[in-house]
């Protein structure tokens, strides 16, 4: 693998990681902690929204994130021909 290609692969990987970590941060620290009081004013399906994010919602989002990240990385590996 050429060096420029390795650098491009790594850059794309980093930008993916950053995008996913932003979602991770917003779901847990954002909705579950920092903005929990504001979100608690919104009620849905018997939950206060902030509380739901803190105890269940964030976990659902973490799960979705891991599935999506594994998929995007498999695609990226194929694109740069570094898959196994």
């Amino acid at each position, binding site marked *: *693998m050429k060096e420029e290609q*390795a650098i491009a*692969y*790594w850059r794309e*990987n980093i930008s993916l*990681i950053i995008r*996913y*970590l932003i979602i*991770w941060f917003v779901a*847990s*620290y954002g909705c*579950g*902690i*920092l903005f*929990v*009081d504001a979100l*608690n004013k919104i009620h849905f*399906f*018997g*939950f*206060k929204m902030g*509380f*739901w994010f*803190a*105890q*269940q919602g*964030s*976990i*659902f989002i*973490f*799960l979705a*994130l*891991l*599935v999506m*990240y*594994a998929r995007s*990385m*498999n695609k990226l*590996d194929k694109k740069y021909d*570094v*898959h*196994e």
Partner: protein
Amino acid sequence: MSLDVLTYLFVGLSFTLYIGIAIWARAGSTKEFYVAGGGVHPAANGMATAADWMSAASFISLAGIVSFSGYDASGYLMGWTGGYVMLALLLAPYLRKFGKFTVPDFIGDRYYSNTARTLAVICVIFISFTYIAGQMRGTGIVFSRFLHVDIDTGVLIGMVIVFFYAVMGGMKGITYTQVAQYCILIFAYTVPAVFLVMQVTGHVLPQTGLGATVLESVNPVWAGKPVLFVLDEVVQDLGFHEYTTGTRTTIDTFFITAALMAGTAGLPHVIVRFFTVPNVRDARSSAGWALMFIAVLYLTVPAVGAIGQLNLINTLNGEQGDGVSYSDMPSWFKNWEQSGLVAWNDRNGDGKVQYAAGDAFMDGKPVLTDKYGEFGQRLTENPLIDTEASPGFDPGIQPYANEVFVDRDIMVLANPEVASLPDWVIALVAAGAVAAALSTAAGLLLVISTAISHDLLKKTLLPEINERQELVAARMASVAAICIAGYFGLNPPGYVAATVALAFGLAAASFFPVIFMGIFFKRMNKEGAIAGMLVGLLSTMAYIVYFKFMGGAKEDLFMGISPEGFGTLGMLMNFTVAFVVSRVTPRPPEEVQAMVDDIRIPRSAGRVHAQEPR
């Protein structure tokens, strides 16, 4: 069949299964012993990771903590699951590509330094022993509670079982036993939860039942209203803080959650699991599988906590909320009174049980006597409590003083009886709790023995030993580790719960930053890493020891951050110091930089399996 016979049968059957698997999966090489030969399917590895991760504490205590502290417990739920996102995105795939056996392996090679390696070994051993002491004790408690042997005998039985399959099978034996243990523990946890949620809300899935409404058959006053809203109202009427909001400051919750997350991602017994899958792609998907299996339990916990609490209040205070006479208490209440997990102190002498905020007994937990009171309740040695001045009682808010002591662990242990489930379910919960404790203890033991035989002996002290001798050393190290862990189980340091904060804080402040920087910052050198690790480690240890063990005053907390959350600050200091030091010291050598380039590219991670076609 009586409950005791059933319990012995279930626990005995599960032990036979574990030992059978251990014999089938005997380890023949160091590679099999350390990383199960590196050929475990990602889904099986995910299941094993989940069993490894969920300890006796997760199984027995987590729902109780959530139940009695509501929103304040959210940090545990988010921290212990969100850590897997950090692990999957930032560490696991690259460590798998690196392709060796242990965390100190990576730190020693990446930072081209045996000092860094030795420092890492010390951290691994320290973190794992603090963690394992609690597990051994947990095993003992489960045995004593369900099988009526004394706690010390319980610890010894646990030691023998773990000894058998961890020493013989190594990682290979442990991995496949943990798959079986996961199945047992998750079944044991969810079955009673389903029934509890169904009885209170009519909803089948506990994961979603938390938002459901209360049934009329439970309490007509609450009927038709969502569980959480009823709970908020009811607990406030009894003088507690609202269930769905917290009492901690935002910054404290933030720091605790972050320390638990980074600590999860940095715990050596979790990281090592990702060395056991065949390649980088499988390391990524295995993290997803692990989180899914963990989430099955962690999404059930908030429902067991909230609905269990509501059910408890309803049972103790009755439909009208003015108390229920002791003679009408269900049998589980009287059963658990015998073990001291529930106790009643009829402070106003009306013969009714009343549950509210504040302490029911002086001097903490009730100490049982052999005597019984006029209503047949078990009496305690605790001195009489002064109603007006009892801690936590606010006559301005609550209708009556609290008369009941309820241990938090009862939320899971008594659940099958509260829900009037058949005896086999109770026996199942016993087998599940034992599975949770043993699986975690075995995973930790393996990490300790590997750190000694591989990192300390083979890589540092006696590099000339051959593979067979290394394997013998690994087995001997497991035996020694089991004995030391057993000693801590038999003579528990009085601060087991507090040491868990220490284990997570240290993992967050030491391992997570150095591994992360080792992958993402090619410029990071050994001077920076060692300085950062030392600063993170020492500051976190000093803070936690001062506030947890030396009785530091709450007012002196730095920015109001609890000791549990200080690992986050230790981690930030680690990063800062490492950066500054690495700027003023030489770049790492060429071959180390080439190694960093190599671990960033997935292909050829399978080189260690070149001879074993998949």
